[in-house]
């Protein structure tokens, strides 16, 4: 290595170090004093804008729902559970009123859900949506099921209500059947009496 190259090498290294260090100093000062460049978002206190078509936690427009089960059927992971009574004047009167149905349960299990958005597609009244919310968390996997009817975690009280609604429904159906049978029996008896006469 010639003497010229030796010194030009040292000079070149020094020059590039000065250039590099001036760049980092520029960024340091601008980031520290003028809050430029900084890309970090202090999440729980501040948040980035959520995109309009973000697929997050579901929400349901209960009064529009007709309880057609299409969302539940198309769900690739089967995480939507629906119970209730179809028909505008269902047997069950104490649930959440839909357009032509009375709902007692409409939950999504977020331990399973893959946020594919397929449930939105086939809904005839367009009432189930994937919303902008994304932080759904709990310390227990049992609490990862969300009740879309109350917009809260699906709790044991909800479970009791669903159980009650199920029993009540069966009871009402049986009652109706018994009434009909009794009516039919009465009608038959009346017809027979007429025949006898």
């Amino acid at each position, binding site marked *: 290595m010639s003497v010229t190259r030796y010194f030009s090498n040292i000079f070149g290294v020094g020059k590039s170090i000065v250039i590099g260090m001036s760049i*980092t100093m520029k*960024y*340091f000062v601008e980031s520290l004093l003028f809050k430029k460049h*900084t890309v970090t978002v*202090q999440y729980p206190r501040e948040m980035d804008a959520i995109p309009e078509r973000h697929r997050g936690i579901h929400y349901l427009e209960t009064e529009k729902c007709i309880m057609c089960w299409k969302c539940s059927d198309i769900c690739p992971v089967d995480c939507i559970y629906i119970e209730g009574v179809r028909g505008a004047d269902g047997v069950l009167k104490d649930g959440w009123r839909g357009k032509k149905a009375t709902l007692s349960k409409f939950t999504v299990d977020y331990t399973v859900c893959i946020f594919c958005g397929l449930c939105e597609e086939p809904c005839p009244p367009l009432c189930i949506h994937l919303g902008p919310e994304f932080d759904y968390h709990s310390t227990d996997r049992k609490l990862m099921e969300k009740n879309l009817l109350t917009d809260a975690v699906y709790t044991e009280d909800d479970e009791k209500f669903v159980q009650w609604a199920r029993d009540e429904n069966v009871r009402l159906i049986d009652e109706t059947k018994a009434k009909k049978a009794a009516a039919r029996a009465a009608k038959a008896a009346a017809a027979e009496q007429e025949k006898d006469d």
Partner: protein
Amino acid sequence: MNSPLFIALDVNHGTLPAANGANYFENLFVSVFGYSTAGTVLGAGLAMFLACLAVFGFVNVFALFAVWLERKVSAHMQCRLGPMEVGPHGVLQTIADGVKLTVKEDIIPKVADKPLFIIAPAIVFAGTFIRFVPLPFSQYATAADLNLGLFFIASVGSVEVLGVIMAGWSSNNKWSLLGTIRTATQMVSYEIPIGIAFVTVAVSAGSLSLNEIVGQQEGWFFNWFVFRNPFLMTVSIVYLIAALAECKRSPFDLPEAESELVSGFHTEYSGIRFALFFLAEYAAMYIVSAVAVVIFLGGWWSGIPAIDQIGMGQGASTFEVVLGILIKAHVLIGKAIGIVFVQMWIRWTLPRVRLDQMMYLCWKVLLPISLVCLVGSAMWDLAMGAFADSNEYFLFFIPK
């Protein structure tokens, strides 16, 4: 005067009137322990213990601060924010990390050489810590004003290499061993430019005592040794580069190159032992910076005589003396933190050099340059001394 007191009882050194700082502490000392031999020995022992405790406390607090500073500096240079959660702007983050490190499980590998493995971090830390002995923190505030202070710092620093070699060898791990070999190569090589830089300063100052060297830089900032002649200015840059390598910091962090060697010689260490290595690294950073300040950047002199003169005059009260000592401590430690910042700045700018580049830099660039500077500086002082006292000159050779 080799007093072990943290505030050295050094009456002969300065030109102090009777009611001044050093005498104040001597009087206090005598009034508590009396003139008896037993009392003096006991007092000296207690003073030694207190000095140790004070320096140890300083090292810990500085390490906590420096780790936080490093994380903040790196974050802002990379468009991030760094620690923000623990305390305002994350100032207590390092305390939380320290607690975490102390309560972590202390793992000793099965195949490790257990005694060496346990003793290695202690030796590394002791090798760093002992270098604080001759280091001044302010005027009259030295653990012991050795008349061979510069030599002591250079020689005792080599003990650290032993600890690192022990750590890497006893870990029985190929990454550790490779890191250790690199460390030994690097630290032994870079001691030579550092030694020659020290000799250059010693030739100009005519003394190896750190307090004596600082004493010669009194007055305006152009009396500092960096501005004394161009050779000393060059050698100060050589010292800064070599000190970076001596601290094993980027761009010379080959011993712990994360991308190649996992973590180098401390790969197998965890918990409190790892914390000791960490502490030693930051203590070493402070030491090389403080030594650079003392031998090149005027030590505790702020560069403005009006500030330096507080508490120095004949009729200064005790309050003024203590105030002056505190101001000088702030100046010295502030300058040292400035150089620590420069080290961090370099770390987050430059990529790591290759092993052969590192050796080339040491043996073919820094060593010849520092040797030229040693001869040149001596010749310069000789030539200038023939005309006048070199303190008569403003910036190299322009007369005041």
